[in-house]
C-alpha cells in the first residue's frame, strides 16, 4: 500500500516541512542527527500531531488538517519499531510478539507467532524476558511484534544504531530478506551512510527539517543536487568555480582552488557561462597515476600534482590528503591498502593524480 504524506510542524529552533510518496518499497530517510527524521515518523504514526498536512495510506486519509481528520494511533495500523525497541519488560518474547494479535484464537496466535519466531531466528527464546536477550534478539523481537499485527506501513527508527558492527551487518541483510517476504511500504530512518546505501533503493536526504534530495541511491550518492547532500554522502572533495565554457560533451570550469577542470555533463545541464557552481568528486574515485606511466587519452584531463600531507589507515583502506596547487586546496583520496603498498605512497611524497571527467559532478 502506498504512503503519501505532507507534513509541516514548527519546532524549537527549526521547522519541518516535508512531503513524500512511497510505494511498496524500502525508502531510507537519511540525514544528520537532529534533522527531524524521527519527528517525521512520529507525525506519520500519530504520536505527534503536525501543525498542518496530510497523511494517506492507500489513498485513505489518516490525517488531514484541513478537514480535521486525525485518526487515533490505534486505528492507523502503522507498524513502528522504536530505536530502543520499547519491548514490554514484563512480557516474554512470546507475550510481546502476540500482544497485538491477542484477540485471535489461541491456535492462530501460536501459528503466527511460531512463524515469526522462525523467520526472526528466535525459536527457543519464546519464554525469555527482554532483559534476558541480547541487543540483536531484542531488535528482532521488536520487529516480529510489529509484523505480527500486519501493519500497512512499517516505520523503522534507527533500528540498528544500538548494536555491534557484526550484529548490525547480519540484521541489515535479514531486514532485506524480510522485506522480500513481507513487501510492506517501509521507511527506515538512519544517519549511517553505509546503512542507507545498503538498504535504500530510494533515499531521501533530510536536512534541517527539509528534504534536500530524493532519488535512487546511485543518484543521491554520485549525483548530489546540493552541497549539503554531497557533504552528507561523504563526497568530501567539494570545490567552487565558475563555468568558463563548453566543449562537445564537457563543461569547463575555472576554479580558484584547482585551476581548469573538465567535467562530463550528462544531458547538457542548462548552465550559462559565468555561472558560479560547485563541483565534487568522491575520494575513492580519484586516480593515482604510477610515476612511470605514459599518459594516454583516458587520463589526459584534470591532471594534478601534489604533496601527500597526511595518511591514515582505516582498516581495509587508507585515506590520504593531497595538497594541490598554489591555493593549498586539499583533496581527499581513499585507496585500498594494496595500492598504497604497491605505489609506496607515504606522507611527504609528491604524486600525480587524475580526476576522471565522468566522476566530476557539477552541483548547479
Amino acid at each position, binding site marked *: 500500500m502506498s504512503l503519501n504524506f505532507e507534513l509541516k510542524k514548527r519546532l524549537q529552533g527549526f521547522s519541518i516541512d516535508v512531503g513524500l510518496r512511497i510505494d511498496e518499497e524500502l525508502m531510507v530517510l537519511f540525514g544528520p542527527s537532529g534533522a527531524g527524521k524521527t519527528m517525521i515518523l512520529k507525525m506519520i*504514526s500519530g*504520536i505527534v500531531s503536525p501543525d498542518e498536512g496530510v497523511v494517506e495510506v492507500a489513498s485513505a486519509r489518516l490525517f488531514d488538517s484541513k478537514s480535521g481528520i486525525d485518526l*487515533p*494511533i*490505534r*486505528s*492507523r*495500523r*502503522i*507498524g*513502528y519499531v*522504536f530505536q*530502543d525497541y*520499547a519491548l*514490554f*519488560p*514484563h512480557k516474554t518474547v512470546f507475550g510481546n510478539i502476540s*500482544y*497485538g494479535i491477542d484477540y485471535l484464537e489461541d491456535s492462530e496466535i501460536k501459528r503466527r507467532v511460531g512463524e515469526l519466531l522462525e523467520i526472526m531466528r528466535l525459536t527457543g527464546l519464546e519464554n525469555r524476558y527482554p*532483559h534476558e536477550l541480547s541487543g540483536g534478539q531484542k531488535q528482532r523481537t521488536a520487529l516480529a*511484534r*510489529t509484523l505480527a*499485527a500486519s501493519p500497512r506501513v512499517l516505520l523503522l527508527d534507527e533500528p540498528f544504531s544500538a548494536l555491534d558492527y557484526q550484529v548490525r551487518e547480519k540484521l541489515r541483510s535479514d531486514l532485506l530478506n524480510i522485506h522480500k517476504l513481507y513487501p510492506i511500504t517501509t521507511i527506515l530512518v538512519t544517519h549511517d551512510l553505509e546503512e542507507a546505501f545498503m538498504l535504500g533503493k530510494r533515499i531521501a536526504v533530510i536536512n534541517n527539517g527539509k528534504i534536500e534530495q530524493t532519488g535512487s541511491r546511485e543518484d543521491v550518492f554520485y549525483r548530489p543536487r546540493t552541497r549539503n547532500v554531497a557533504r552528507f554522502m561523504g563526497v568530501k572533495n567539494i570545490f567552487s568555480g565558475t563555468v568558463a565554457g563548453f566543449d562537445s560533451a564537457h563543461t569547463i570550469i575555472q576554479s580558484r582552488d584547482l585551476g581548469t577542470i573538465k567535467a562530463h555533463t550528462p544531458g547538457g545541464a542548462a548552465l550559462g557561462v559565468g555561472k558560479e557552481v560547485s563541483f565534487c568528486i568522491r575520494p575513492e574515485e580519484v586516480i593515482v597515476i604510477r610515476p612511470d606511466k605514459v599518459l594516454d587519452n583516458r587520463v589526459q584531463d584534470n591532471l594534478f600534482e601534489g604533496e601527500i600531507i597526511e595518511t591514515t589507515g582505516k582498516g581495509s583502506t587508507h585515506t590520504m590528503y593531497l595538497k594541490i596547487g598554489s591555493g593549498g586546496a586539499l583533496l581527499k583520496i581513499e585507496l585500498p591498502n594494496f595500492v598504497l603498498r604497491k605505489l609506496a605512497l607515504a606522507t611527504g611524497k609528491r604524486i600525480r593524480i587524475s580526476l576522471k571527467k565522468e566522476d566530476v559532478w557539477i552541483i548547479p
Partner: protein
Amino acid sequence: MDFFPLYLTIKVSFAATVFTVAIGLVIAWTMAKKEFFGKDILDVVVMQSLVIPPTVLGYYLLALLGKSSPLGRFLEDALGFQIVFTWKGAVVAAFVSSLPLFVKPARAAFEGVGAELENAARLLGKSEIYIIRTVTLPLAWRGILAGTVMSFARATGEFGATLMIAGNIPGLTQTMPVAIYDAVQRADDYTANILVGLITLFSFTVLYLAGRFTRGRF
C-alpha cells in the same frame, strides 16, 4: 483492657484506604499522563495534608461537613448521613491525611512507565483502558502497593484531625492514637504501653514491607 480502639482503628483504616486507593489511582494516573490547566494547583491541594497542621485540617473538615455547612446539612437531612462525631468522620480524616502518601509513589510509578511503551501498545491497535490494564498497571503495581501500605499506616496513626472531627467518644469514635492520649491523661500506663507497643510494631512492619515492594525485577 478494652480492645475497641484496636478494632475501630483497623476498620477506619481499611475504609479510608479503599477510598484513598480508588480516588488516588485516578488522581495519580491523571497527574502522570495528562497535561491540564490547574495541574500544579491540584498537586498542592492533594499534598497539603503533609504540611498543614492536623488540627487545621480537622477544622476545615468540620467547617465543610459539620451541621453548620450546607453540605453537612444536606448529607444529614436528605441522606441521613452524619459524619461529624461518628466513626465516618474518622474515615474522612484518615482519607484526607493519607491521600498524599498514596498519590506520590503511585504517580511516580505511573510516570516510570514510559510513554514509549504505551505508544508501542497504541500502535499495535490497543485502547487506552486495555493499555492501562495490560501495560501501565502491571509495570506500576509495586509503587502502587508501596503507596497503599504507606497510606494505610498513615491512616492508623491519624490523631489531630480525627480528634477534631470525630471526637474522643470511648466505644464509638476512640481510635488507638486517641486512646493512647486518653490513657496517658488518665495516667493508665499499662494500657498506654500496650497500645504504643502495638503501633510501634505495626509501623516497623509496614516500612519493611513497603521497602520490599519497591525493589523490583523490571
